[in-house]
C-alpha cells in the first residue's frame, strides 16, 4: 500500500446514496469486461443533483463529456456516505473513474464493507466536517501513516480516524487477499 495519496478533491454533501453514485439503470453492464466496465466510470456520480455536484458551488460534473475517468482522486463527503442499495457497483464505479480514497464524516455499513472487502478504495472517516473547508478542485494529500489529510492549496492539515480493525484487510487489498494471507482459504 502506498503511504500517500495525492490528487484533486471532489466535494459532496451528506447522504450521498448509491443511486446517486451509480444510477440503477446502469447496473446491467458487465463488471469484468474491460471495455464495457468503463461505463461504470463514465456514469459515476451522474445522479448527484446539479446544485450539489462539486461543492461549494455545485454545477461541476464529476466526469467531463464522454470520459470514463475523472480528474479527481479523492472524494470529500459529509455524513452517511454510500447509503441506500447494497450495490457493490458503487465503489467499483468510483474506483473505475480513478478515485483512490474517500474522506467522509460517516459511512453506510454496506458501502463501507464493499469498499474495504473488495479492495476498491479506502474509506477514511474524518474527525471533523471537511466538506465546508475543502473545495472541489483543491489539491489534497492523504498521509496513510499519520492518518491525516492536508489541503495543499492552503497548507491546512486535518486529522483522520484510524482505520482500526479493517486496516489489515485494506493493506492486503481486500478480504480474499487477507483470507489467503492468514491461511483461512488457499
Amino acid at each position, binding site marked *: 500500500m502506498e503511504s500517500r495519496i495525492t490528487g484533486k478533491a471532489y466535494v459532496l454533501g451528506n*447522504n450521498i*446514496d448509491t*443511486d*446517486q453514485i451509480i*444510477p*440503477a*439503470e446502469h*447496473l*446491467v*453492464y*458487465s*463488471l*469484468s469486461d474491460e471495455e464495457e466496465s468503463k461505463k461504470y466510470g463514465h456514469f459515476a456520480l451522474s*445522479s448527484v*443533483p446539479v446544485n450539489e455536484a462539486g461543492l461549494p458551488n455545485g454545477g461541476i460534473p464529476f466526469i467531463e463529456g464522454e470520459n470514463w475517468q475523472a480528474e479527481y482522486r479523492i472524494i470529500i463527503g459529509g*455524513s*452517511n456516505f454510500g*447509503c*441506500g*442499495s*447494497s*450495490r*457493490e*457497483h458503487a465503489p467499483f464505479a468510483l474506483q473505475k473513474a480513478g478515485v483512490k480514497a474517500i474522506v467522509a464524516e*460517516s*459511512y*453506510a*455499513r*454496506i458501502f463501507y*464493507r*464493499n469498499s474495504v*472487502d*473488495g479492495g476498491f478504495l479506502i474509506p477514511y472517516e474524518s474527525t471533523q466536517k471537511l466538506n465546508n473547508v475543502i473545495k472541489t478542485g483543491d489539491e489534497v494529500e492523504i498521509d496513510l501513516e499519520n492518518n491525516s489529510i492536508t489541503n495543499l492549496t492552503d497548507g491546512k492539515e486535518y486529522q483522520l480516524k484510524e482505520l482500526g*480493525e479493517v486496516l489489515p484487510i485494506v493493506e492486503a487489498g*481486500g*478480504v*480474499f487477499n487477507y*483470507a489467503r494471507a492468514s491461511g*483461512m*482459504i488457499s
Partner: protein
Amino acid sequence: MGMTITEKILAKAAGREKVSPGENIWMNVDVLMTHDVCGPPTIGIWKREFGESAKIWDKEKFVIFPDHYIFTQNSHANRNVEILREFAKEYQIDNYYDVGTERYKGVCHLALAEEGYNVPGRVLFGTDSHTCTSGAFGMFATGVGNTDAAFILGTGRIWEKVPESLKFTFNGTLPPYLTAKDLILQILGDITTDGATYRAMEFDGEAVFDLSMNERMTLTNMAIEAGGMNGIIKADQKTIDYVRERTQSPYEIFESDNDAEYLNKYEYDVSKLEPIVAKPHSPDNRDIVRNVAGTKLTKCYIGSCTGGKLSDFQFAAPIIFGAEVKVPTFVVPASTEVAKQLEIETYKGISLKEIFENAGCMIGQSSCAACLGGPDDTFGRAQDKDIVISTTNRNFPGRMGSKQSEVYLASPLTVAASAINGFITDPRDYI
C-alpha cells in the same frame, strides 16, 4: 450483563458463549441469497478468486431469485438472467427460481419468506440491502456486497462487527388508519437515515406482536433506511405458524435478556400517531399526511417488498372499492403468490384484482418493477417531473426513474386514498 436477541444469534453463529457490540467476529452463514443484479458479479468474483475448481460451500443454502429487471427488452438486463440460468444449470442449483417457469417467484425478500427460507434463529446474508426484511422471523438477516457474497459462496463464512442495539417499543392497539409503514416512517423521522448505522433495530411491544407476518416484514424491511445492520422481531406463535406451513426445518427461538444493554430505547403510544409520509427526497423527511394533503399527483404506485404484499392490497382495496382512480395507478404484487392471492381474496364478494381493475389501476407482473427505476420500459417508472406517491421504501433523487421526479412514501391506505382523488389524501377521510 445479558445479551440482546441479535447478540445471541451472532454468538451462536460464531460458536461462542458471548459476543459484545464492537467486536469483529467470523461466523457461519445459514442461507446466502442473491438476485439478477448482484448474482452475476458475485459469481464472477467467486470464479476469479477460487479458480477453475471453485466449489459452492453448500448448495442447499444458496438461493437465487431473479426479480429486479425481469420484464424488459433491455438486452444487458436479460443477459444477467441468462448468466444465472446457465450457472444454475452448470452447478445444479435447486434453489433457483427461473423466470418464465412455474417456479418464478418475484421479489426476493418476500420469496424467502414464502419458500420457507426464513426460520427463527438462522443467519441470512443477501446481496440486497433489504435483506434485513427477514429479521421479522426472529433471525439475523443483513445485506452485503458481491465480494462478501462471493466469499460466503466459497467458504460459508464471513466477518461482521457485532452491532449495538436500539429498541423500539410500540404500545397500545393500532388504529385502523395506521399500518406498519406509518410506524417505520415515524421512526425514520425521529432517528434519520443514519440513526441506526451499524446498529441492530429491535422492535417490541403489543402493537408489533399484533401485526401479521406481512406487516412485521414492512417494519424490518426499512431498518436499512435508518442505516440499520438488521431489524429484528422475536419469533412468536404467529411466526411458527407461518414457518410451519412452509418448511419443517428446525428452528431456535432467541429473545433478549431483561438486562440486555441497548444504546437507546424508544417508546411509542400508537394511539397517538398519525398517518405519515416521507416527502421528497429522503425516507426521513417525515411529515403527517394532513400537512401535505392536497398535493397534486401524477402517479400512484402500490408495490415492492415493502408495500406489495397481500396485506398492503388488503388495506388498499376497500378504499379503492367502487371508486375510480384519478391518476395512473400502478399495482405490482411483489410475488407470484401474492398475484394469485389477489384473484382469490375478496372484499364484499369481489376479488381484490377486480377491485383494482374496475377502478382503472394497471396491474403489473410480479417483480421489483419501478421501485428502483430500472430500464426505460419498466412498468410504472417515474418519468420527467412526475409527482408520485408510493408504498415503496426509497425516494432518493432518481430512485424510481426520472431524476426530476418527486416521490412521497406512504402507507397503502394513504396511497389508495390519494389515488382516488389525484392528490395526497389522509386515509382517515375514508375510514
